[in-house]
């Protein structure tokens, strides 16, 4: 049967992988190509790259990184950050990305999701949703790294994105991101139950039990984590073995 996926996420700026808590206190984690190769060797099922470069002058760096990774690592690569138009999707795919994730621009221009999926296929369009809890069992979509409220309900928004052609949802809890106290499981469960397309749980993984909980309790099809892998706390292989002991089907 289909395995649940573990996806290490590399936040990239100025050619380096960094990780911070809620987008502040950035800590250098190393060279993206080297890190990508390491995770591939450890058995990562996919890799996600998020270009968090603020200046548009430096946008070219991510293309060179993806080109290098794609010539050495033969697992799916998802790349996001600053995707504003169909041309950005094309450029990332041409550089070697297999999937492109669209976040803020999907909110500003939902038609972009439909256009990109129509042109390149749903299989390569991931819509990233940054969610914040606003009440019991209610979450709203935020943009611009969690700074801007949109007033959109996360579950309704995810359904709309599925309808427009998203092939997958990358769901990040902004409340949990960088906190290392586990995924927002009710959020993950609410979204995955409402959709036909796969959901990647993100934001808050601090240990291996959290990853297993994301799948078993949250119902996620894949789990994304950054810091627990970057700083050597766990290898991807350890994470998979742990999940297997919890009865989760993984690719070992």
């Amino acid at each position, binding site marked *: *049967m*289909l*395995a*649940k*996926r573990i996806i290490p996420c590399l936040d990239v700026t100025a050619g380096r992988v960094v990780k911070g808590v809620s987008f502040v206190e950035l800590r250098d984690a190393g060279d993206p190509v080297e890190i990508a190769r390491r995770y*591939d060797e450890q058995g990562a*099922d996919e890799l996600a790259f998020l270009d968090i470069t603020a200046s548009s002058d430096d946008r070219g760096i991510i293309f060179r990184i993806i080109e290098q990774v*794609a*010539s050495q690592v*033969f*697992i*799916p690569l998802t790349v996001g950050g600053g995707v504003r138009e169909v041309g950005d999707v094309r450029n990332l*795919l*041409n*550089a*070697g*990305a*297999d999937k492109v994730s669209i976040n803020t621009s999907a909110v500003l221009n939902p038609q972009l999701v439909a256009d990109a999926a129509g*042109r*390149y*296929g*749903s*299989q*390569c369009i991931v819509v990233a949703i940054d969610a914040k809890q606003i009440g019991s069992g209610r979450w709203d979509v935020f943009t611009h790294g969690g700074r801007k409220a949109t007033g959109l309900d996360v579950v309704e928004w995810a359904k709309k994105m599925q309808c427009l052609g998203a*092939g*997958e949802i990358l769901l990040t809890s902004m409340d949990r991101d960088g906190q290392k106290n586990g995924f927002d499981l009710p959020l993950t469960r609410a979204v*995955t*139950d409402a*959709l*036909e*397309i*796969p*959901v990647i749980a993100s934001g808050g993984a601090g240990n291996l039990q959290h990853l297993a909980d994301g799948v078993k309790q949250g*119902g996620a*099809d*894949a789990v994304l984590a950054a810091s627990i892998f970057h700083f050597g706390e766990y290898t991807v292989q350890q994470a998979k073995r742990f999940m297997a002991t919890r009865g989760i089907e993984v*690719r070992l």
Partner: protein
Amino acid sequence: MIDVAVVDYGMGNLRSVEQALRKVAPDDKIIVSDDAKVIADARRVVFPGQGAMPDCMRELETRGLRDAVLETARNKPFLGICIGMQMLFDHSTEGNVAGLGILRGEVVRFAANMRDAQGDKLKVPHMGWNRVRRIERPASHEGDATVAPSPSGRGLGRGSALEHPLWAGIPQDERFYFVHSYYVCPQDAALVQGTSDYPRPFTCAVALDNLFGVQFHPEKSQTAGLKLLQNFVQWNP
């Protein structure tokens, strides 16, 4: 002379396929081409596909590549990947479109509201790493078609004469990377070279003479995928 031509009919991203072929065949001349003549003259052809099958069929026509694909699929080592394999069949329920009709059978969608043994929802697209159960018997259509694929696919030892050459060195039940909502249903069970479960078995690899087709993406399936591509570039059916 071009060793491997990857057919480019404007649908999606062929970069990954090209990169993976370069990795397994560094000395081969590999080209991504939308030129019918180049494709027809190449030693081997890889026919990928992404997106929706009606769009793929239309683009193939529009770019005048249909005949080159039809011809090479009949007489050269030919590898169809994902929708590239689906297009080899008669018909798809996706957009109710006719395929190239080289292989008998239909392309259909996974059922809605599928559940696994634990009762969890199975998402469509079927996306991620799934096990591939190889069917071990003659690759050639002239083989013993009365031998139905055994449910376990474990009837014969590894490396036996009945294993298709493209599976050489790949363990039984190895995982490959999939992303698709439709799958092929060949009329002739003898075409089936591999199946996968979601939750019921579906065909994920087919072969007929010089032709091999896979639903998964070998170019994204790490070691096992590269091995299959390496087997393909060395295959002399």
